[in-house]
């Protein structure tokens, strides 16, 4: 069994290597024309590929070749800092070879690098850098000329807050890393680079504070990342799905955020952040289940208010997954549990509804999800209008047309609205809600209870990089519970989560030194 799996893995690896295999073999030639031919053949039928030959005024026989991709480069840098100095250069026999002269005396480019293989050259050119081929040189110069348009720094729409920093990440990893550097001015901050995707060659950065991170967790993450062998990585979720524990679970095993302050907060707790070029989403690991209910704003506002908000979020999670199932179980299996006035009202409401309760409820739950999806996918103005039309007009019309009863509309709306309290659990909510709904529909309250137990067992078995997401130790120590159901005042949060970080103490013993 294991041997056949290994054989399959080898086949896949070989197939992926074929994509870039020949490039590794091709080296830069001292003959400029040969390099030009190679580049032209590599970028055949790519009309964004630009090859510009430049000759110096002093010695027209000496030619250079510049290679870059249109739209990816800053043309002003190429014109002012590369082409103009090259054409104006006065080459003389100073004993230096041409490569060194160009590198040290002519170019006005910060931090040029040398590349001798065409794989590096292709990667650089497709990233927006410019490759400069110099005659009689076995190396090309890679010049940083990136100048493609990027989205500006905005507040992330999915994580908007009332109070606190409003900055959000953008699609440039370098810019995103600068946000972290600006907030963490310590040499303890480590940033290890990786490249993923045999075709996309997407850069990634593993970021952590060396003295806080647990080596075992870091090593496990690196081990998992190093086994990734895929042709393209377009978003952080690619990495998430490839490195996560419990691969089939609907619940998240890695945190994600678009806010630098959140990433810094996680790093200070001993977590590891994974940045990926081309996406504003940053992954954080290990991920604890309670993080689903935490928000960065929890630490920027009064702790009474934020503790209340957190309890609301937890209650919202319980309400959104259980209310439809409970309603169905009680009204179809255990009517005697309902107070008589309520039973009469519900029965009266349903007198003319032609569909069975489960179908009515299921249809409306799906309709709510359709409206939600429509609201998200449509442009914001249309989306809002769609939500209002859906909620008000369709709901009212459905009740008046006796297709649905008003109580079911209330149940679905309650379930839907409470799910919006916890956006991080949107996807699991839908699946868990439908699962409990199916259990309750088949067996009533015993089925519902069984479904809840299954969900609870599943949540208790969740891991993130080998760390249990929910601690079942029953440790009632204050420091273990200071940031779970409620958020303790900052001067009481003296320790980091010990399952994640090595350095436990985060605060001096005299928390509020001015206090006499």
């Amino acid at each position, binding site marked *: 069994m294991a041997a056949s799996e290994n054989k399959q893995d080898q086949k896949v690896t070989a197939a992926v290597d074929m994509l870039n295999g020949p490039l590794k073999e091709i080296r830069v030639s001292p003959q400029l024309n040969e390099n030009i031919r190679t580049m032209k053949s590599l970028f055949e039928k790519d009309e964004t590929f630009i090859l510009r030959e430049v000759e110096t005024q002093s010695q027209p026989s000496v030619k250079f070749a510049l290679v870059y991709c249109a739209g990816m480069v800053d043309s002003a840098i190429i014109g002012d800092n590369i082409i103009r100095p090259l054409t104006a250069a006065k080459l003389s026999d100073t004993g230096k070879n041409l490569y060194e002269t160009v590198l040290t005396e002519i170019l006005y480019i910060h931090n040029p690098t040398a590349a001798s293989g065409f794989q590096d050259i292709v990667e650089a050119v497709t990233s927006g850098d410019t490759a400069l081929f110099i005659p009689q040189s076995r190396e090309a110069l890679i010049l940083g000329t990136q100048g493609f348009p990027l989205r500006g720094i905005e507040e992330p729409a999915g994580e908007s807050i009332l109070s606190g920093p409003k900055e959000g990440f953008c699609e440039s990893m370098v810019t995103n890393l600068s946000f972290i550097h600006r907030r963490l001015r310590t040499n303890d901050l480590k940033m290890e680079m990786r490249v993923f995707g045999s075709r996309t060659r997407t850069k990634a950065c593993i970021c952590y504070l060396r003295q806080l991170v647990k080596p075992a967790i870091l090593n496990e993450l690196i081990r998992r990342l190093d086994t990734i062998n895929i042709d393209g990585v377009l978003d952080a979720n690619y990495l998430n799905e490839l490195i996560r524990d419990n691969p089939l679970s609907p619940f998240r095993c890695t945190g994600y955020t678009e806010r630098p302050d959140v990433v810094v907060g996680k790093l200070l707790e001993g977590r590891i952040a994974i940045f990926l070029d081309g996406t504003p989403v940053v992954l954080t690991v290990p991920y604890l289940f309670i993080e689903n209910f935490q928000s960065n704003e929890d630490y920027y506002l009064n702790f009474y208010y934020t503790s209340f908000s957190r309890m609301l979020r937890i209650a919202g999670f319980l309400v959104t997954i259980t209310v439809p199932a409970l309603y169905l179980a009680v009204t179809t299996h255990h009517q*005697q549990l309902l107070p*008589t006035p309520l039973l*009469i009202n519900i029965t009266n409401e*349903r*007198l003319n509804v032609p569909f069975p309760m489960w179908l009515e409820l299921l249809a409306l739950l799906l309709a709510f999800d359709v409206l939600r999806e429509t609201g998200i996918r449509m442009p914001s103005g249309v989306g809002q209008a769609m939500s209002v039309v859906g909620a008000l007009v369709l709901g009212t019309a459905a009740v008046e047309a006796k297709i649905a009863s008003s109580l079911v509309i209330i149940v679905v709306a309650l379930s839907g609205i409470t799910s919006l309290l916890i956006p991080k659990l949107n996807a699991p909510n839908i699946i868990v809600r439908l699962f409990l709904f199916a259990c309750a529909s088949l*067996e009533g309250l015993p089925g519902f209870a*069984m479904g809840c137990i299954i969900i609870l067992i599943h949540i208790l078995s969740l891991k993130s990089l080998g760390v249990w997401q929910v601690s079942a130790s029953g440790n009632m120590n204050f420091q273990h519970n200071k940031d779970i159901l409620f958020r303790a005042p900052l001067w009481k949060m003296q320790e980091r989560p010990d399952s994640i970080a090595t350095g436990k103490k985060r605060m001096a013993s005299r928390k509020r030194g001015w206090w006499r």
Partner: protein
Amino acid sequence: MVALKHRIISCAVCFLLLFGGCGNYHELNEFDIVAGMAIDSTEDGYKVTLELVNKEGSMQEGLSSNIITLESETVPAALASSNARFNKQFQFGNMQVIVISEDIARDEGIMELLNNFLRDYSIRETILLLVATGESAEETLCAKGIDTAIASFVLEEIIRPPGKTNSHTKEISIYSALDTLNTPGKTLVLPCVQTWQDEEKTTYVEISGLAAFSGDRLQMLLPQRETPFYLYAIGQLQTHEFTFTLPESREQISIQVTKSDTKRSFYESENAIVFRFDITASGKLTHTPPGIDITKLKEKSAIEQAASEALNNSVSDLLTACLEECGLDIADMQYDIYLWNRSLWEKLDRTPENLLNIVIDVNAQIEISSSGNIRNT
């Protein structure tokens, strides 16, 4: 492979368990809600009357009910006979009351009926039990309340009023009735219900007193006016408008008792068992004849003494009458003996005749906590 096998078996067991409940699935449109049940005896067996809630109405707009009667040799058989006449099932889970006719309670006993109810899982054990003292139990469900058309709901609200203000009857559910019948030394006492007509010949229901049982058979009916004194004796009185006569002036005074407590004790004395009831109650004056000044300590003490004596006599007379006339220990004195002095219980001759050896000693103390005046007269 073993793990896979276990997973498949676990999934199969889960699905079997889940699908096993499909039989309990009932749409709300598929049944009628039974609000109450009345049981009368006929020559061939039983007549069961069901009060069904009319689902067209709502609690806000006002409810109405439909009455149906079913007859057969037994109550379950009568209920089963409905299948031939009605297309819907009955939902007993929200039934409020079961009214048993006086004839059945007196002649046949209620144990058999209670057993029937326990066998039906859909019937709650907290449904109230009542005894109809009119012509039949059926007529109580055919009547209505003053503000609600459904007689069963009216009865339930009278017996279980909101705010714990009950002073007119005792609440007994199927569960506690069975518990009473099966506990040594306890006597079953159920509320009675009857109908009455106003001038427009509209029939209403009302609580009419208490029915005391010997075993599971009705033995004695207590009028409604005696109910509060019974509740004093068993320590379950919540509020009571107590009216008595001043011995000297023969004038009526009312005290609204809002707090009462009864301590019960017993001791052996020569050939009798003395059972002592220490009742302490307090409340405010709600009616006094003119000229009485409650601020004067002497007058207040005189009223309190008169009230205490009146309460003393009322409770004592009630308990003694039950003992002497019917051999009924309605205050569960024997149960206290069973509970606290097992050796005495073992040697106690528990025949009704021997109950006469119990001496009732009531010691009531009523305190006037407030004159009740909120304005100067």
